[in-house]
């Protein structure tokens, strides 16, 4: 008997509509809808799409928990053997929804979950640890390539076959270490690699240690007296009570807080959400991490043009490089949009 697969797509691929229909609520239809046809062809009868879940991207993004639970309930009765979402190509919200659903389904039903995305889709960084994400081109033109690759990987997983390296199978590296038996003893592999390194020949390390790249410095600020300076911190400073529930470590979000009219951070108004250092000092006086008081003085004295009305906060502790990158990129986009000239970033 063929394996039972549930397919997840958004309102666009279900032919319901574009952005104007993005608030479409979750629905499940028996059988195949839209891109499922391409998957069916690639399954060659070995697996069958028993039902298709459709959900609007905006609806999913703004009602994540609710949408997830509704969809899990919808698919439960089908007792699926696998779950396939997308491909989402480079559509950010669609990719995030696909990733989130894959993660939820894997956790709830412990079955293989496969999606397909363009490597720069934000859903990749967020969910690659939880799902197999096949690398696709950046637009739907790539469907002809993406669907067979996703179907092939799903079938392998369904049959319990071992999965090769990312470049062999076409999925995006998940960052999970897996054991395998090599042809040679580890000692021989090590001496082989040693010789390659000595000779300056190419070799592939079996375990990558973290390396860091660089960015060229921006030119200096010429006219400080008319500049808008923003404060950003990785020290977790936030309004007292941590209203956005930023995590003490491995943070999944950053905070944006208005400081219009605030001249001084005090133990009454601000604290730190950071779990990576002794919070006593920052909780007593958050200016010790985020110097709002001094910046206000400098603003009043005309040394700087303006202190930006908002500050941004993250928790550096245990936050993945991917998340830190994502936060940085998002924060700087907002700062540029708001006309900020330069940034003071404080770290603990």
């Amino acid at each position, binding site marked *: 008997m063929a394996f039972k697969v549930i397919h997840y797509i958004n309102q666009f691929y279900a032919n319901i509509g574009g952005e104007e229909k993005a608030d479409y609520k979750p629905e499940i239809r028996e059988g195949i809808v839209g891109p499922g046809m391409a998957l069916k062809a690639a399954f060659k009868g070995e697996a069958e799409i028993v039902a298709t879940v459709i959900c609007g991207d905006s609806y999913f993004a703004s009602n994540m928990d609710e949408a997830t639970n509704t969809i899990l309930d919808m698919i439960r009765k089908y007792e699926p053997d696998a779950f396939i979402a997308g491909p989402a190509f480079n559509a950010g919200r669609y990719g995030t929804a696909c990733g989130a659903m894959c993660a939820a389904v894997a956790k709830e039903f412990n079955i293989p979950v496969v999606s397909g995305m363009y490597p720069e889709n934000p859903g990749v960084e967020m969910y690659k640890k939880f799902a197999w994400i096949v690398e696709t081109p950046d637009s739907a033109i790539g469907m002809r390539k993406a669907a067979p690759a996703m179907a092939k990987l799903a079938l392998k997983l369904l049959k319990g076959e071992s999965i090769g390296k990312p470049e062999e199978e076409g999925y995006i590296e998940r960052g999970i270490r897996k054991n395998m038996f090599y042809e040679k003893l580890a000692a021989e592999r090590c001496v082989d690699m040693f010789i390659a390194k000595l000779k300056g020949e190419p070799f592939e390390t079996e375990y990558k240690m973290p390396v860091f790249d660089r960015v060229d410095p921006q030119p200096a600020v010429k006219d400080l007296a008319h500049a808008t300076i923003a404060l950003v911190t990785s020290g977790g400073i936030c309004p007292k009570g941590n209203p956005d529930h930023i995590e003490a470590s491995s943070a999944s979000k950053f905070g944006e807080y208005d400081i219009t009219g605030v001249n001084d951070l005090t133990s009454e108004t601000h604290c730190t959400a950071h779990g990576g250092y002794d919070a006593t000092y920052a909780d007593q006086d958050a200016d010790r*991490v985020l110097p709002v008081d001094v910046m206000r003085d*400098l603003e009043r004295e005309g040394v700087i043009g303006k202190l930006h009305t908002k500050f941004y906060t993250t928790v550096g502790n245990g936050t993945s490089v991917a998340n*830190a990158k994502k936060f940085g990129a998002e924060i700087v986009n907002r700062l540029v949009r708001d006309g900020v000239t330069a940034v003071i970033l404080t770290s603990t």
Partner: protein
Amino acid sequence: MVKEIERKLPVVHMCTIVPISQTVGANRIVPTIAIPHPLGDPTKTPEEEKILRRKLVERALKALQTDITEQTVFTE
């Protein structure tokens, strides 16, 4: 994070551990006082502390006004 900001805006990194700042790719670096209180010193009076903080922030502003071609640590 500092790198992503530097792609679009000049940024000065105020942090206690300079080598870490260097490895994460900051270009303008101002060393600060201590990890749990980079811009303060609880052993001093609030007034003294603020003077200290102001000095560090002014150093950061000076860094932002300085053209550089490589990672630079501003210690004065």
